[in-house]
């Protein structure tokens, strides 16, 4: 399985994803420039955190128009795994690959800390190595992570089990339904504000993110259809 880590101007967690996948998990990974127009030869694509285009206008709003985006949309339509963390999640919502939007934290401040999450759905490509309802801890680092969707969308998300991670205990940013991460309906696109790639090594004090990448690497071997439920 070969994974693309997309680099937008202003991405800054690209190296973190790369190292987590490559150095820690031993996966085949390649940086892919936003200028490229195809994802030929890749089996999964990851959108890193950071401040693409300075987060000017809205977070992720301008990145959505980069050259690589049509290829990512097509990739997602084909049911292949697409993952976005933090700014990557924001880009996925702006691009319409995930429903809803991320707005400014209720505190109006950037917040970097480790939060508790409940794994709500362990049947996705990305979460099979977690237990359902398991509580894990992952770092967050964002100023605009308050998930919003209208009531109808929220109801649909809940009904389809698209909410994958929920803040447990304190809600750090005001997200509706305590949502920290969601998939699309088909389950092959996951976006989340927390940073699993920052929690894959014992020396950094947290291993709870590791199983997300391991799940994907394991499930990548089987076809997407089979892996989703």
């Amino acid at each position: 399985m070969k994974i693309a880590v997309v680099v937008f101007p202003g991405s800054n967690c690209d190296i973190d994803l790369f190292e987590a996948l490559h150095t820690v998990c031993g996966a085949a990974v390649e940086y892919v420039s936003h200028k490229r127009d195809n994802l030929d030869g890749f089996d999964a694509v990851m959108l890193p955190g950071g401040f693409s285009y300075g987060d000017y206008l809205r977070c992720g709003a301008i990145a959505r128009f980069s050259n690589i985006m049509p290829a990512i949309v097509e990739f997602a339509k084909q049911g292949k795994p697409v993952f976005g963390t933090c700014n990557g999640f924001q880009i996925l919502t702006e691009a319409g690959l995930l429903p809803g939007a991320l707005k400014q934290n209720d505190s109006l401040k950037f917040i970097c800390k480790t939060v508790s999450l409940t794994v709500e759905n362990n049947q996705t490509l990305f979460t099979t190595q977690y237990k359902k309802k398991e509580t894990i801890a992952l770092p967050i680092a964002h100023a605009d992570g308050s998930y919003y969707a209208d009531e109808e969308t929220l109801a649909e998300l809940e009904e389809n089990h698209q909410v994958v991670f929920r803040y447990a205990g304190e809600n750090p940013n005001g997200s509706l339904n305590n949502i920290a991460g969601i998939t699309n309906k088909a389950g092959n696109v996951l976006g989340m504000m927390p940073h699993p790639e920052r929690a894959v090594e014992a020396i950094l004090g947290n291993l709870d993110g590791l199983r997300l990448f391991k799940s994907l690497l394991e499930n990548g071997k089987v076809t997407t259809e089979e892996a989703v439920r």
Partner: protein
Amino acid sequence: MVNVRIFVTYKQSVFNPQGETITDAIHSLGFSAVKKVNVGKFFDLQIEPNDKSVEEIVSQVSEQLLVNFNLETYHYEVMEEA
């Protein structure tokens, strides 16, 4: 050259934490006369219409880029000549 001002605000149903924080701050400065604050942003566009009309340009730019319809809504005004 046409100058257009596009106003973007959160939809009424969406909680805007800024508005409340600012209202509180205004009250703590002693201005109890201010009952409510809403915050929005605006974009001033200088447009030199070519094949498309100003309305077309404004609505397309707004819809494709400037406004996120999950959260926001917009309207615009054509300003006086530059």
